[in-house]
């Protein structure tokens, strides 16, 4: 039977099993079942419309609602009229790949936190607008003889609005400040909470004794501004993260188990025990570590070894979770699952490296460790000095001390970093670079060494035919007839070079060896050197296919994993900016040397295992270098975690994408240089912003200590400094 038909039959046989694996994702209430699906390939309003319309037409469907932002689809139907497998098949027919997911596990808490911020923001906005309205009247009253009774009324109304609003909208800050204090540390939220609470408290006291000045407007506008920064920050990060999570969930698959009576059954990966025999169809990823019991095939091992050329395996060979089966179907006896696999070993290495990384502290937190004590000391000094050197009452001296705390309230300081990060991550996202945390940008600005993986990072990770004169057009056309019947990456690359070539019927694929076709003028073979019986021992560093036919000498097709279009350009521009560039690959030394030479990279290491890579990066770190690791394979994941900051292409293994701080999309490497550039500029802007914020404090703190700051001056100075910081951050988006 044709190899392709055999695969198809195998796939069809598995189809009914799909619905069984779905059970944990379906929620059934009162005869209505609900299912959440991730939709791969939904990019525009047209796709949303097609999916919703098609599914709504299915029998029994009560709701089909797609969310374009998160690429998710929520389905509800009457159990007795339809089933999940059928509905998913309907979506697949439209050309979208759908995968069920558990909404609780994906982003559950994050979405709630985002909504809480939005609610707080709305409350703070309402209070800020109304209190400011009353405050403007009071300020105008200072110059137009407003009576104390009217002013008192205004203050009391402000109190009634501001206090509940602060109590509600301040919760995100208070909670975080409390956590920091409990842990014995300080973060930006400590001075913020203190200033807000003290200014509200003092204003309440002033209002109670009928005083002239209340700072309610400062307290609520401060909260309002800060919440805007917080919300934008959270949203930008949430989006990048959900994009990555979707990619991960799409790869999750059920496993096909072969029972002793020969029947197949689809089972969740968690339920597999060692000793079970599982079926791995061509095109599938091997889910377990094990030994081949039946079948022969070529495996794409790039995930584990970083090696680009496929490896042939047959009965008795060891295979590892994460390898992709390319040509023939395999029966694998399970040796290890879950925690026992090589894959899990790599994950453990990665966790160890991650825990070292979590000790990184953001720039803002480092500054606040100096800033907060200094401010609190200044307030104390103010109080003590007024008490010692003048004869004013202690209440007034306390008022002055609190005024110092209020004007130094780090509004501009707290906005300095998040605003720049929001602008930077927004502009990078539009160019296809996703930032997973603001911290990554700070780390990237300090990097001095870029370490690249080879396969899939510098190269596209897929072989392409080399035009070297050893074959002619007729050889290619004839070979493509055989090649187009196979899934093997080299055969595919060959077929792609001869578009429109028809496939002959009767092509036989011998997994691990090659393809064979009997024609009226003799047998034709396409495959390995041995398969085509070539005795020539000319060694080649590149993967190759031989084509043999009666009456002709065998010809050789050489393949090379091509560099990305802009690899050379990107590396040059990095080197020109003073970064050291190194190459760290799991591939064979001769293949790595060739690429390093072509790209002008002087420092390179080949045949590196995941452990070697991690050790190498640790070595660089101990030598005082700040590294950025760029890699895509699972074998790179621990190294990605060990570097100060890491990047992955969007085609990378899921684990790598989760580990990496920055993901770049598309076939181009220029995202790396772009991110490095943006990080440096963002770093410069952050420092300018800190300078602006400090300049503002230098100006207002002496005024406050001298007892000259009124609520009007505080409101103007605070808004002016915040606006200056925001405008400065926006410059990042203006250039280019």
């Amino acid at each position: 039977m044709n190899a392709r038909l055999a695969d198809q039959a195998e796939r069809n046989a598995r189809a009914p099993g799909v619905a069984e694996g779905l059970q944990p994702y379906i929620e059934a209430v009162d005869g209505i079942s609900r299912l959440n699906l991730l939709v791969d390939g939904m990019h525009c309003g047209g796709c949303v419309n097609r999916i919703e319309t098609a599914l709504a037409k299915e029998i029994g469907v009560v709701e089909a609602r797609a969310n374009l932002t998160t690429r998710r689809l929520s389905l509800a139907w009457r159990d007795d009229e339809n089933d999940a497998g059928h509905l998913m098949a309907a979506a697949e027919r439209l050309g979208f790949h759908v995968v069920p997911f558990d909404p609780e596990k994906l982003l559950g808490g994050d979405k709630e936190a985002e909504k809480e911020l939005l609610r707080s923001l709305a409350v703070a906005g309402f209070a800020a607008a109304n209190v400011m309205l009353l405050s403007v009247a009071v300020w105008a009253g200072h110059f137009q003889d407003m009576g104390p009774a009217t002013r008192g009324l205004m203050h009391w109304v402000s109190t009634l609005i501001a206090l509940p609003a602060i109590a509600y909208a301040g919760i995100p800050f208070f909670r975080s400040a409390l956590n920091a204090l409990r842990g014995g540390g300080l973060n930006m939220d400590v001075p913020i909470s203190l200033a807000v609470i003290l200014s509200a408290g003092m204003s309440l006291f002033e209002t109670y004794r009928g005083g002239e000045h209340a700072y309610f407007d400062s307290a609520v506008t401060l909260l309002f501004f800060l919440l805007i920064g917080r919300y934008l920050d959270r949203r930008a990060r949430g989006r990048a993260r959900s994009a990555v999570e979707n990619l991960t969930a799409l790869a999750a698959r059920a496993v096909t188990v072969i029972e002793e009576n020969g029947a197949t059954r689809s089972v969740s990966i968690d339920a597999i025990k060692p000793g079970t025999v599982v079926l791995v169809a061509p095109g599938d990823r091997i889910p377990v570590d094990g030994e081949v019991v039946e079948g022969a095939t070529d495996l794409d091992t790039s995930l584990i070894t970083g090696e680009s050329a496929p490896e042939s395996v047959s009965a008795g060979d060891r295979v590892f979770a994460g390898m992709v089966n390319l040509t023939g179907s395999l029966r694998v006896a399970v040796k290890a699952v879950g925690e026992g696999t090589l894959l899990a070993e790599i994950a453990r290495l990665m966790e160890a490296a991650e825990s070292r990384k979590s000790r990184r502290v953001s720039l803002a937190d480092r500054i606040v460790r100096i800033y907060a004590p200094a401010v609190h000391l200044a307030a104390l000094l103010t109080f003590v000095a007024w008490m010692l050197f003048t004869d004013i009452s202690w209440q007034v001296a306390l008022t002055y001390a609190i005024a110092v705390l209020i004007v130094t309230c780090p509004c501009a300081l707290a906005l300095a970093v998040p605003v720049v990060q929001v602008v930077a991550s927004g502009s990078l996202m539009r160019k296809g670079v996703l930032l997973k945390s603001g911290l990554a940008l700070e780390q990237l600005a300090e990097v001095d060494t870029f370490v690249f993986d080879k396969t899939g990072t510098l190269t596209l990770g897929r072989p392409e035919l080399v035009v070297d004169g050893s074959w002619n057009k007729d050889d290619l056309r004839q070979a493509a007839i055989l090649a187009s019947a196979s899934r093997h990456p080299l055969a595919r690359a060959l077929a792609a070079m001869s578009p429109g070539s028809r496939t002959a019927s009767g092509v036989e694929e011998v997994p691990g060896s090659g393809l064979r076709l009997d024609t009226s003028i003799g047998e034709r073979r396409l495959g390995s050197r041995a398969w085509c019986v070539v005795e020539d021992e000319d060694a080649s560093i590149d993967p190759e296919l031989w084509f043999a036919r009666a009456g002709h000498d065998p010809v050789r097709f050489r393949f090379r994993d091509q560099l990305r279009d802009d690899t050379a350009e990107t590396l040059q521009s990095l080197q020109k900016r003073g970064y050291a560039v190194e190459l760290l690959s799991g591939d064979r030394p001769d293949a790595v040397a060739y690429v390093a030479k072509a790209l002008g990279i002087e420092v390179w290491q080949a045949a590196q295992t995941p452990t070697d890579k991690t050790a190498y990066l640790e070595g660089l770190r101990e030598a005082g270098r700040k590294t950025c690791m760029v890699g895509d394979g699972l074998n790179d994941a621990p190294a990605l975690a060990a570097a100060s900051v890491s990047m992955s292409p969007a085609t990378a293994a899921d684990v790598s994408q989760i580990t990496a701080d920055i993901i770049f999309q598309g076939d181009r490497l220029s995202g790396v240089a772009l991110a490095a550039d943006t990080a440096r500029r963002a770093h410069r802007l952050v420092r300018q912003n800190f300078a602006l914020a400090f300049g503002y404090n230098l100006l207002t703190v002496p005024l406050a200590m001298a007892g000259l700051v009124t609520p009007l001056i505080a409101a103007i100075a605070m808004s002016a400094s915040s606006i200056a910081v925001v405008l400065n951050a926006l410059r990042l988006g203006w250039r280019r």
Partner: protein
Amino acid sequence: MSGLLYLIPAALLLGLLGLAAFLWALRSGQFDDLDGAAERILYDDEDR
């Protein structure tokens, strides 16, 4: 000045109405898919 006695409550009430409307919209999921809503309007749904 006695006008303040009803003008301030009236202003606050209007503000509160706006706030309540926003919180209701947030709760009913209108901010969940900002990209989709913008494009959805371009497609007719009479044939559903």
